[in-house]
């Protein structure tokens, strides 16, 4: 056998690393540099690490969600029964389902806290406006995950939640009718609706969230995490003094958060496993109806205001949140030391909390 022309094969270069480097020709040194972001010192405190938490939880959701899909049947006639079987018959089905459910609560809470920390520290200001917008969209998709996921169980509250949400969509001026029908997949909430919710939950939204998250992380890396004046009032010229490398220090922090989350999720799943209420019945609305806690505020708002106003005001509030960096910029153009954003944020938080607590007290 004769050797054909090619790279000389020497003992060292035949190692798997060289093999891989020539098959996947990327510049490892550049990759190392790019992934090893200098992290400002304040990230040594957990309050600043809330952004990584939803990302870890999304990983948990992807794994447990794919496992749930093995037994879940997205059909109005069998969905509830399949979740029942998952919970009571399939070995550890209750566990996977409970982890998925609890991680969804934690993920939504973590995203909300992360958005609050970015808002109140002004970290959305130029040049990071775009990343704030990606963040608001990430929050919206995460809430969408919660809504569609809960609907899949097809218990009474799932069914009536979807009915109310679809009719609410109808109330959006101009495009509402088309959107509502698109969501229902027909005249009324039924099998077509469930299939659509399922596809949104396990196909469209995971893709969307992955893309948004990739963009979000890329922009964070390109801009760097905002450094604050409190940690270097005189702007130490030396980056090394102001920051520490992502690997291994910050990566270690994330690992510790991950272990903590795994422990918390396991405890919650074992102590408070996901339950299954009555099956959806299109003919009868149960006497006590409420959505998940993260939609309490909308639910209370719907009870307080007329339909069109509720829809328009919620949409408008979402729009304001999205473009907030530009509103803030205008406010600060007049007065650079303006604290207006803090007041606006505080009012928004208080209003949302009051509506949420009000609904929680009314429905308990």
């Amino acid at each position: 056998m004769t050797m054909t022309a090619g790279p000389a094969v020497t003992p060292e270069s035949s190692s798997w690393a060289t093999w891989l480097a020539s098959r996947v020709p990327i510049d490892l040194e550049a990759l190392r540099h790019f992934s090893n972001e200098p992290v400002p010192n304040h990230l040594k405190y957990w309050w600043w690490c809330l952004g990584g938490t939803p990302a870890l939880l999304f990983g948990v959701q992807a794994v447990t969600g794919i496992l749930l899909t093995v037994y879940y049947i997205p059909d109005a006639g069998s969905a509830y029964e399949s979740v029942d079987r998952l919970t009571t018959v399939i070995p550890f089905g209750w566990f996977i389902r409970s982890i998925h459910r609890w991680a969804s609560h934690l993920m939504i809470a973590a995203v909300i806290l992360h958005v609050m920390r970015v808002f109140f520290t002004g970290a959305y200001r130029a040049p990071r406006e775009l990343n704030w917008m990606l963040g608001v969209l990430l929050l919206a998709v995460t809430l969408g995950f919660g809504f569609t996921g809960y609907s899949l169980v097809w218990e009474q509250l799932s069914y009536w939640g979807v009915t109310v949400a679809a009719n609410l969509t109808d109330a959006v001026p101009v495009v509402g009718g088309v959107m509502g029908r698109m969501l229902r997949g027909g005249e009324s909430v039924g099998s077509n609706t469930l299939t659509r919710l399922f596809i949104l939950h396990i196909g469209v939204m995971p893709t969307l969230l992955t893309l948004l998250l990739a963009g979000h992380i890329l922009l964070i890396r390109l801009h760097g995490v905002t450094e604050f004046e409190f940690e270097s009032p005189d702007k130490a010229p030396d980056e090394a003094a102001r920051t520490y490398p992502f690997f291994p220090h910050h990566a270690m922090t994330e690992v510790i958060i991950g272990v903590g989350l795994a422990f918390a999720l396991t405890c919650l799943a074992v102590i408070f496993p996901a339950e299954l209420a009555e099956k959806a019945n299109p003919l009868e609305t149960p006497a006590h109806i409420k959505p998940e806690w993260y939609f309490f505020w909308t639910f209370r708002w719907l009870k307080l205001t007329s339909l069109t106003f509720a829809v328009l005001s919620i949409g408008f509030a979402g729009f304001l949140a999205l473009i907030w960096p530009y509103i803030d910029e205008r406010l600060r153009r007049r007065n650079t030391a303006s604290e207006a954003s803090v007041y606006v944020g505080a009012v928004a938080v208080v209003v949302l909390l009051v509506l949420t607590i009000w609904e929680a007290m009314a429905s308990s």
Partner: protein
Amino acid sequence: MRTDRRQFLLSSAVATGLASAGALLASIVGRYLYPRAGVRRTRQLYVAPASEVPPGTGRPFTLPDGGTALIANTDGGYAALSNLCPHLGCKVHWEETERHFVCPCHDGIFDADGAAVSGPPADEGQQLTRYQVVQVGDHLFLELDEVVEV
């Protein structure tokens, strides 16, 4: 100059082509996803013998399809109310003690005639849909006007 222009025309043609292909594709996908229009139909549903609703009374009836309608016999004849809340589509139920309908979703209340008296449906000035009641001999039928899937 000439090549610039040629280049410009070429890029515009390519851009227009791609844009129209994209629009065509989007409209195909849109049509694929958008549910087909349902058809309107009226049908009559048997309720009860007329003797079960003497003049001046009213009571809820379970319809053959499992739904509920409240039938009342007043001076003007028979009237029937749908139990579908006009606010966001939950089902109202009749509370005999208070003699009113309650919608559990956002605390909508309707009086015995179906007019909203409090909650969001009242803010919107809504009322429960009235069905036509037809009497054939001694029997009462509801006339339902509905849109069904095809």
